[in-house]
């Protein structure tokens, strides 16, 4: 019984150490946010390929904060569902991307490259251009 308890405590300790290592990996290799004022651009590409551009100065550290600021100050809106890894954008400027109907979804691009982070975790950097693009799975 004693031996079994010891094993469990060792497992708890190992789990805690792994959590700390994960945190360290994130601090070292994770996306880094910049503090202070930045000038950024957000482009929205709709289902017809038309681009609406928003340029703004912001103190936001992450893309979602920048989007929230634009939603307050500009003619920009978005909606989303909270997913396992951040918000899953379902509509931008009233245009709904319904994956179940036609395989449509909203993609995030950062300076022309396909984004690796959700809007919550995408750091905002000075001079960056973010693009929210309406795409369908058939385009891939």
């Amino acid at each position, binding site marked *: 019984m004693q031996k079994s308890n010891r094993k469990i405590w060792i497992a708890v300790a190992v789990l805690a150490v792994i*959590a700390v290592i994960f945190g360290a990996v994130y601090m070292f290799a994770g996306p880094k946010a910049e503090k202070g004022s930045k000038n950024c651009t957000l482009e929205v590409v709709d289902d017809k390929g038309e681009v609406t551009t928003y340029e703004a100065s912001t103190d936001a550290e992450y893309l979602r904060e920048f989007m929230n600021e634009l939603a307050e100050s500009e003619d920009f809106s978005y909606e989303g569902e909270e997913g396992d890894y951040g918000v899953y954008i379902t509509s931008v400027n009233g245009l709904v991307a319904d994956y179940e109907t036609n395989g449509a979804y909203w993609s995030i691009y950062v300076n022309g490259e396909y984004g690796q982070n959700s809007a919550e975790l995408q750091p905002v950097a000075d001079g960056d251009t973010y693009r929210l693009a309406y795409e369908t799975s058939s385009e891939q």
Partner: protein
Amino acid sequence: MRRQVSSKTSWKARDIVVIGVMTATLEAAKTALAVLPNIELVTFLLIIYALAFGKKAYVAAFAFVGVECLVWGMNIWVINYLYVWPLLVFVTLAVNRRGCWSAWAYAVVGGAFGLGFGALCSIPYLFIGGPVMMASWWVAGIPFDLIHGVSNFVLCLVLFKPVLGIVEKCRSAS
């Protein structure tokens, strides 16, 4: 002395109902906590169901994935779900095979599963975009995995005894 989860599984017609109830409660638990990112009861319930119903929990895990597909449509996470949830059942049964019924032990299983969830789900990205894409996808989600691991650990620790007791009562009464 607690019973050991049987390694042999006998299937009866009433198991259809039992698996249906397991699947429904998994889906209800997922939906109820959907507003809280990465705080979920599916991990905890699958651990409990594996301990109470043995290998039948595999069927409930796959049925849960089927229901999720019906609700949310097909996407890459379906591939993830098809191996992560059965893996959890497998690990739970493997731990139990050593005669373990400690809430702490299953809290560790749940916590480890939550911490490793992102790493497990990043595997398909190895084939889609290579190791760099897989690693960057995993690293970007680490904060969510930490929340997932800690919340799983706490939920399992707090709910294990009372909920397992109730589920065991239901199982023996059925």
